């Protein structure tokens, strides 16, 4: 699908600052790092979770566990989606029991993926608390889901999309507002 970049919402320097602020907020809200863990949602949520964990380690000196979650098998739209989703890796190698889990995703939109992630996490264990951290909240929620930590609030229209780019898989760190051209 072709798209046209309408605006660069966050550039590389801004990206780093946002991660730093989110890490501070997470530590503050949780009064430290005790029993704290990150779970990143495939794909870019995973890299965001890893970056947040590194930043928290820089600030507090403690290394926190980072898990990887794929929500494909819990989605409500996989049989109506245009393209069948590939099942990706889920790897949570620590016990979720009684943990304060920070679920990390790049863009919060309808809230359906987060709903799927919550169901998946509950099947994997029983965390004490789950908080939601997102880099961008673009609005248009379809479910009663509210993030605890937000990098950037971006009001969007339906035919716009927010693309998060990260050096781990893309050529740069950036958040782009794009317009999708319907084929």
């Amino acid at each position: 699908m072709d798209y046209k970049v309408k605006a660069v919402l966050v550039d590389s320097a801004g990206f780093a600052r946002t991660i730093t602020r989110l890490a501070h907020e997470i530590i503050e809200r949780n009064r430290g790092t005790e029993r704290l863990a990150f779970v990143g949602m495939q794909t870019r949520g995973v890299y965001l979770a890893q970056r947040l964990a590194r930043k928290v380690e820089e600030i507090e000196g403690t290394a926190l566990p980072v898990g990887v979650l794929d929500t494909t098998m819990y989605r409500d739209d996989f049989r109506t989606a245009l393209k069948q989703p590939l099942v990706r890796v889920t790897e949570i190698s620590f016990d979720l029991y009684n943990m304060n889990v920070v679920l990390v995703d790049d863009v919060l939109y309808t809230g359906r993926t987060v709903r799927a992630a919550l169901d998946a996490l509950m099947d994997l264990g029983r965390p004490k608390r789950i908080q939601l951290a997102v880099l961008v909240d673009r609005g248009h929620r379809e479910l009663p889901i509210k993030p605890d930590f937000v990098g950037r609030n971006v009001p969007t229209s339906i035919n716009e999309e927010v693309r998060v780019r990260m050096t781990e898989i893309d050529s740069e760190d950036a958040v782009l507002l794009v317009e999708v051209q319907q084929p």
Partner: protein
Amino acid sequence: MSLLTHKHLLGLADYSEADITTILDTAERMKEILERPVPKVPTLRGVTVVNLFMESSTRTRVSFELAEKRLSADTLNFAVSSSSLSKGETLLDTALNIEAMKIDVVVMRHKSPGSPHFLARHLDSIIINAGDGCHEHPTQALLDMMTLRQKFGALKGLRVCLVGDISHSRVALSNIIGLKTMGAQVTVCGPATLIPRGIERLGVQVTHSLDEAIQRCDALNVLRLQLERQEAGLFPSLREYHQYFGLTRRRLEKAPAPLTILHPGPMNRGVEITSDVADSEHSVILQQVTNGVAVRMAVLYLLAGAKMPSTEMKV
């Protein structure tokens, strides 16, 4: 658009390298689900699967049923002995009647080769072949390939030898087709009476000496003697068969490097394989069984989880 280019899994004959890789990759993800505290996901909620087994089976039927339950599909088991087939109803009538009750997938085993292809022509449902006579048994070959890939990392260039009753084995044919598609080198080994003439045309090497085969392969897939499907007189006695084609520790010790041993089960211990080989550290027979559930979950997800044009917007 689905990840596979097929509606059914009737055999591996028309599955490409990309299709098989997609199934094996997805199966690895499914394996992780099986290791969770709650080994169940809601993915196929609302999908009804009928297990139509018209020939006896333990492993495959249980494995499919477990895979279906792990994916939250509704399952219906159908055994020939307690059904109207024993009253003389035809296969097609039985299948049409079951389909009229609104089902989505038929997992089928039948003694006649081609019967799943026949049903696929007459039903709207997705058909998965769980073994049709001496023709194909695609999910078994897929789980064998998954096990080999876990052990060796890749299938390309791997030297695999299928030993035993090649003529009556659907496992052999599906393995040959699948392994060749994936770029492995395949050898078949057995008495001349149990190897079909012209099998070289499938691109396999033929040998009648197990000792020779052991010298030049990485893995041995030991097939069961299909005594129930054979006519008499194909080999003199079980004892003689064991003498020439039974896999023993002593034989294996002559291999240049330890070989990985597979067996699709059920084993005739002491005939095609001895217990010390079957239970040795180089045997991956029980891993095959575990992988079987994962592979079947992958196939069900990839076929039944794709968008179905006839039932648009069905969630």
